[in-house]
């Protein structure tokens, strides 16, 4: 089976887009990241939910002290407040290096192997530099359940 049969078409992130728009799209299609594209449609990088939240809301000391955190702590309110403020800000500063990508005619098992090799649970599908959609480990699991014969 080829990736084009299972890929999820998504919107892309671009200059000036807000964090809210990225969150909404990622939530809608259930993927943890979007490609960040130039005006010509070329992928310049990616924005991930994890990176946006970590960089903007979670200082290292909160991560390191995660086991102590409780509702009564004031730092929890601060993190929530920061997350709310974050929604209206542009997503540009959170762009990271491009994610793993494969062409749409690549076999799905190759995608699975590359995800495993690179310790990730998603990749982008790109043909001739143009973004086609994303494939996640959940897509692969869904595909396998369709092949189920037991």
């Amino acid at each position, binding site marked *: 089976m080829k990736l084009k049969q299972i890929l999820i078409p998504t919107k892309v992130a671009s200059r000036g887009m807000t964090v809210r728009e990225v969150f909404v799209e990622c939530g809608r299609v259930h993927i943890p990241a979007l490609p960040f594209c130039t005006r010509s449609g070329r992928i310049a990088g990616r924005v991930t939910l994890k990176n946006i939240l970590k960089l903007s809301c979670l200082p290292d000391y909160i991560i390191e002290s995660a086991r*102590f955190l409780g509702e009564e702590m004031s730092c929890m309110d601060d993190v929530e407040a920061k997350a709310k403020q974050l929604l209206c800000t542009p997503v540009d500063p959170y762009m990271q290096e491009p994610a793993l990508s494969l062409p749409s005619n690549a076999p799905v098992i190759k995608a699975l192997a590359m995800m495993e090799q690179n310790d990730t649970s998603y990749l982008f599908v790109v043909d001739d530099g143009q973004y086609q959609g994303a494939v996640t480990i959940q897509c692969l699991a869904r595909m396998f359940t369709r092949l189920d014969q037991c």
Partner: protein
Amino acid sequence: MHGSEATAAHILFGWDPLWVSSILFVVTYAVIVSEKVNRAIVSLLGAGLMVMLGVLNQETAVSGIDFNTLGLLTGMMVIVTITKRSGIFQYIAVWSAKKVRAHPWGILLMLSVVTAVFSALLDNVTTVLLIVPVTLLICHELDLSPYPYLFAEIFCSNIGGTATLIGDPPNIMIGSAVNLTFNDFLFNLAPVVPLILLITLGIIYAVWGRKLQATDDARERIMQFREQDAITDALLLKQSLAVLALVIGGFVMAHPLKLEPASIAMFGAALLLLLSNLHRSPEQQSEDVQKTFSKVEWVTIFFFIGLFVAVKGIEQAGVLEILADRALKLTGGDITLTAMTILWISAIASALVDNIPFVATMIPLIKSMAPTFGGAENLMPLWWSLALGACLGGNGSLVGASANLIVAGFAERSGHRIHFLKFMAGAFPLMILSIVIASGYIYLRYL
């Protein structure tokens, strides 16, 4: 055998080994200090060039590598990596904050002492990596600036590390090069440490102590912390503490048992690896061992390897002998003046540049002074001066010790940037004060 006399170093094009090794060493040192290239790459390249250009042959280069230092560092890194997974350090940090009923000054005092003790028994970097996040969390809850707390912890990590053989890399290097035991450091350096700690904390109190105030609500929030949540694995905790106690007991008994510290640390590491993997399948064991080894600071280990070879190069070429001669002429061969010069120069140098290459260079230099002072046994004041200067000097600036940079990094990422000059303005005079105390101690006890 490649390293026989027949294949001894043969300097390329007949260049003078003295100049080649000196230039190589100075360039290596300068690039390390510039911090433009990773220090392990620089030191290995410097070491490689010492051999490639014929200053050293392979056998002599390898003989310069101090495997006791490397073994002790690696063994302790493995033990600390496994132990910290249990959450014991954060447990103690929170427990100590609650012990003083979350009083801001009491917390500063407790966390400072905890940092000093951990730094003496483990290493400074691990200690601050574990204590600083809890400190920042506590300061946030108390609505207090974390600066006085972080300042105190930087100082206490470097002061605490001075007390023992394993507390700071310069001590490990000196101990290994001169065959000094854990107890030697304990008897000779530990007595002055509480005094320096007390005076440092006294000054910190005078500057910030009274300003540290928190509301009852904020203090109550700290009292709600559940320190037991920090413990991730009670069995691992018991195993780690047992092995740590065994290793420290081993260091104390090393001399009568005729054991080297590196052997004890490596044995402790192997034992803890075994104990923490007893319940796992072979595949899980491989994964765990690999994960543990990946946490060893190989950059530091390879930095040491390269540095030892580079220093061997200048030693072999006779550079250090010439430098020692010049230094002795300057001090007139007077032990007091020599000890004080070493103490002050190593303190100021350590405040501004990495103290590891400095100490690596000073060790053979001091060793070559033995004939002037009537034998190696009369050099002890110089070794203690070097250890005190190199360890305490790290407090002089943010770049003085790796632990300082780690604290600064945490602070910056939590929105509380520590400015280099602001820190130095407070830290340098306080470091100088600690060196004044150390000078008095060395003079009264050894000279």
